[in-house]
Structure formats: C-alpha cells, structure tokens
C-alpha cells in the first residue's frame, strides 16, 4: 500500500489541485496519519460501495475531486464501476489489485485456500482497464506498485481529466495472499521480470495471464461529456432559462 500512497500524494502535488478539495472514499482502510499527511478528506466505506458513495459526494458538491480507492477487485462493486463508467461520472477510481495470478512466481499453489483471493484461484480475473474502457472510462492505466513515478504522473494526469478515470495498481497484499513473504522478499526483481510497459496498448490485449508478462502503461485517454455536463446540456436545452446549470466543471 505504501508505495501507492506515496505516488498518490506526489500525484496530487503534480496535478496542482488543493488536497483539501480531494475526497477519498475507500473500502481499504488508510492509516489516520496517512490521511493527515495527504491532507485529504477520507471516508472508509463499506465493502464495494466506495464508487456510489463518491458519486454522492461529487453530485453533492461538484467542486470536489473524488478519488475512490477500490480494494475488492470489482467483486461487490463491479456494478457501480460499470455504471459509473457509462455515466462518465467524474471520479478517479484507483483499483488496488492484490490478486496475484496463481502461477506467477510459482506461488500460491492451487491448494491455496481459495477464500483468501478475491476470486477462487481457478477463475480468470477481470481485465480491469479493458472493462473500464469498454464501459466508457475516459482514462485507463495500469501500473505495478513498483512504478511509483509513472503511477504518480498517471494520477496527476487523471485528476485533471473530466470523467471516469481508472488506474489499476498491481500490488501484493497479505490479506489476499498467504505466502506473501515469498513474494515480498524479491518483489523488485519479480516486477522487473514480470512486467512490460506498453503505453497506448489496446487494453483488450492487456489480460493478466500466467504465461505472459503483466502489461502496464497508459491505455486509454479520450474525451467524453461527463454526467454533470450532459445533465446541464440536456436540461438547459429543454428547460431554457428556467434551469440554472448545476455545479459545472469546477463547481
């Protein structure tokens, strides 16, 4: 988690956005000191509901930059994710992917208790950038916990995007992974050996499979009217001056 937080705070800095304007609904608990250091507002929501909670925050006060941290790998929250993408709700979803495909690094073996992975170990995981992209996200990227600088840049970039941005961060987490020490010991090499940067790659081809290396990079960067934009556009068109546009890009 720590490298991600570091990258996150760097990213906020780079983006030039006041930390106080950033709200972080998350189903991963942050340390209180971490939050103090970041200077953001933090909401530890129930599992899987970070995105709708963020939707509420954003619509309640469009001036906010809302950055949901999602740790459940779109299990409970999958529906909220795809719909936020469809609406192009102005959120930056940072999906911390603790899932390590079973064959990578030879651990865990198939007999690892399935309950510790967000999916049963024999299931194919979601290709999150692809899912996000196909649901209409305007920005998708994937980095490993190792690529802190790239991650920071991505976050800075995404924070200034209008619409739903998704950044998947591959990072092993003890909660989901029994033999974590095996991996941590040689994490650096592990990611060096097992990841390859392909910016602009079609996320469709960025599946995480045991055979191929983890494809990382920035995949999508497009423009689409956000929910609030199209809301204002449509209603002004129909209601004319009876309607005062809501919030707007920066509240």
């Amino acid at each position, binding site marked *: 988690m720590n490298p991600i937080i570091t990258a996150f705070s760097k990213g906020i800095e780079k983006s030039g956005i006041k930390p106080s304007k950033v709200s972080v609904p998350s189903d991963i608990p942050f340390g209180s000191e971490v939050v103090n250091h970041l200077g953001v507002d933090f909401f530890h929501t129930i599992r899987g509901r970070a995105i709708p909670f963020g939707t509420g925050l954003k619509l309640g006060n469009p001036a906010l930059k809302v950055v949901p941290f999602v740790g459940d790998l779109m*299990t*409970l*929250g*999958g*529906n909220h994710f*795809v*719909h936020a993408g*469809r*609406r*192009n709700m102005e959120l930056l979803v940072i999906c911390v992917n603790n899932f390590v495909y079973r064959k990578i690094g030879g651990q865990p*073996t*198939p*007999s690892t208790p399935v309950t510790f992975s967000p999916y*049963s*170990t*024999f*299931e*194919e*995981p*979601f290709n999150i950038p*692809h*899912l996000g*992209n*196909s*649901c*209409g996200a305007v920005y998708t990227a994937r980095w490993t916990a190792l690529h802190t600088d790239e991650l920071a840049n991505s976050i800075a970039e995404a924070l200034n995007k209008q619409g739903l941005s998704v950044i998947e961060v591959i990072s092993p987490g003890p909660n989901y992974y029994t033999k974590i020490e095996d991996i941590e010991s040689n994490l650096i090499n592990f990611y060096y050996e097992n990841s390859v940067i392909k910016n602009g790659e079609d996320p*469709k081809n960025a599946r995480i499979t045991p055979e191929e290396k983890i494809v990382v990079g920035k995949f999508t960067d497009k423009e*689409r009217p956000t*929910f609030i934009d*199209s*809301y204002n*556009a*449509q*209603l002004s*068109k*129909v*209601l004319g001056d009876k*309607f005062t546009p809501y919030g707007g890009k920066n509240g």
Partner: protein
Amino acid sequence: MSTAHKFMCGINESGRHKMSPVKTIDSKIIHPMDNLLRMERIPHIWCPSCGIGLAVTAFTAALEKAKIDLNKVAIVSGIGCTGRVAGYTKLDSFHTTHGRPIAFGTGIKIGNPEIKVVVFSGDGDLIAIGGNHFIHAARRNIDMLVVCVNNFIYAMTGGQVAPTTPLAAYATTSPYGCVEPPFNIPYLADSSGAVYVARWTTLHIRRLTNSIAEALNKRGFSVVEVISPCGMYYSRINKLGDGLDMMKFYHDNAEIRHGEDTKNLDIGFQTKIIVGKFVDRERPTYMDSYNKWLSEIKTEEKLRK
C-alpha cells in the same frame, strides 16, 4: 386461424417459415407451443404491441429446434415485464428477485451441472441492478443462456429511465430527456468474456429463433439481446407510435452485420440498430476450470504422499 394467431405462431401470410405445424385437438386449433406454455396462464399480462410475446414464441420454437431434453431445462427470470416469462413457460421455472436471476441460475447450474439454465429477463433487471452478476457470470463463463429483452425502459414500474435508454429519450424519471449514455449490451458482454453474443429485434423472429437455438447448444455464457417495442411506455412517452410503427422502424433501420466488432453497436435515439451474431468463441467454462483445478490438487497431493 386468425392472422394475429398465425403471427403469434410465426406463420406469415405466405405461410413461409412455419415454426411448427398447426396443432389440433379434436379439430380445435390449439397453440402450437401448447406443450411449452402454461396455457392456463394465458392470456398473459403484456400490453398490446409489446414484443416480449414474440421473444417467447421465438424461444419456445428454439427449444424445440435445439432438440434438448426439456425436463433438464430450467428457466429463471427476475422482476419486470420480461420477468414474467418464467411464469408462462412450461419448464422448471423460477421467478426470483430483482436483478438476481443470473446468481440464482448459477446456483442451479453448479448444484446440478446437468441442467441447462436459461435466464430470461429484461434490460433493467439484468443490466442495471443485475449488472454485477452479469459481468461476473460472463467472466466465470458460467454455462447458461441469457436472453435479455431490451425495451429501453422500465416498463413494469411505469416507464422510468433504464441504463439502456438512448440519450435524450424521455422517461418518467428523465422528464427532460435522458442524460446518461446507454449501455451497449453486446460490448459489455463481450468485454466481460461471454462466448456467444447476438442481437436481434422482435422483427427478426426467424433469425432470433435460430440464434437462440444455436446458443442453447453452446457451452458457456451466451447472451442474446432482443430489441423489443414497448408501445405502452417507451413509444408513448417518446411519441413513436404503436407496436406496428416500431416494427416498421426496425424493418427500415435494422441492419444485419454478422461478426461486427461489438464496440460499434451503440444504439442512439431512433438511430440505426445493428443486429446479428457478433461473438462465437470457445472458453473453458466455470465447471471445466473447477474440475481441472480439483484434479490438479489431487495429483499434487498424490505427489506429496
């Protein structure tokens, strides 16, 4: 036999593409799908000009076409107009909670892999509240057929905006026009891993039938989207005329493009509708990978001993 009846049996005026011969019991014409429909439930609840009846006709015809043991087919529906389909088909049929038929069907499939599970429900049910189960079942590649009747609106509750309502279309909860871009269901299914994806309108009754029959014999998560008119709400609120006008619209604006890349299948308000079979691929189903995994463990343990 009335024209309407013929139409319902899928027999057009020229008598072409009969789905099944006209059945009679002591010279009284009975519904040709008598053995597949719960006739005691007819007349059904659907409004005049609704397309769901056609989808059911196609489905029942497909069941016969697919030549599968009907006792081993379970049909699961959710809530909504299409949710009532389970109540009219004479199979093991379940009318479950809103948005959960896929989850319920998953339980049936894994509880007894012999059963062919068909989830027959609407867009709001499967894609809005059931979206999570939809993408996850596709990812897992649960061996089931999903027939998603898409009428662009929540009809049962009186015409609220749905995640399939085209931009700027009107609905009671988007009284000033829909502001949310709709889902492209085939694309969603495709990108979450469905092995068979097709889309037809209720006008393409024969192709739809064939498609469903094909999908019934497909191993894995198959999705057939059926674009269907809702004369009572969608057409009325948007002033699109009655069911026949919608059918005419499909006739003029539906274009068949097999194998089209699913990302080009967006549907706008009264724009061209691209139909056809888009995806047909092979992937190990959930039970396949489960059994593989199981055998791996067992061999591993043998080695340990």
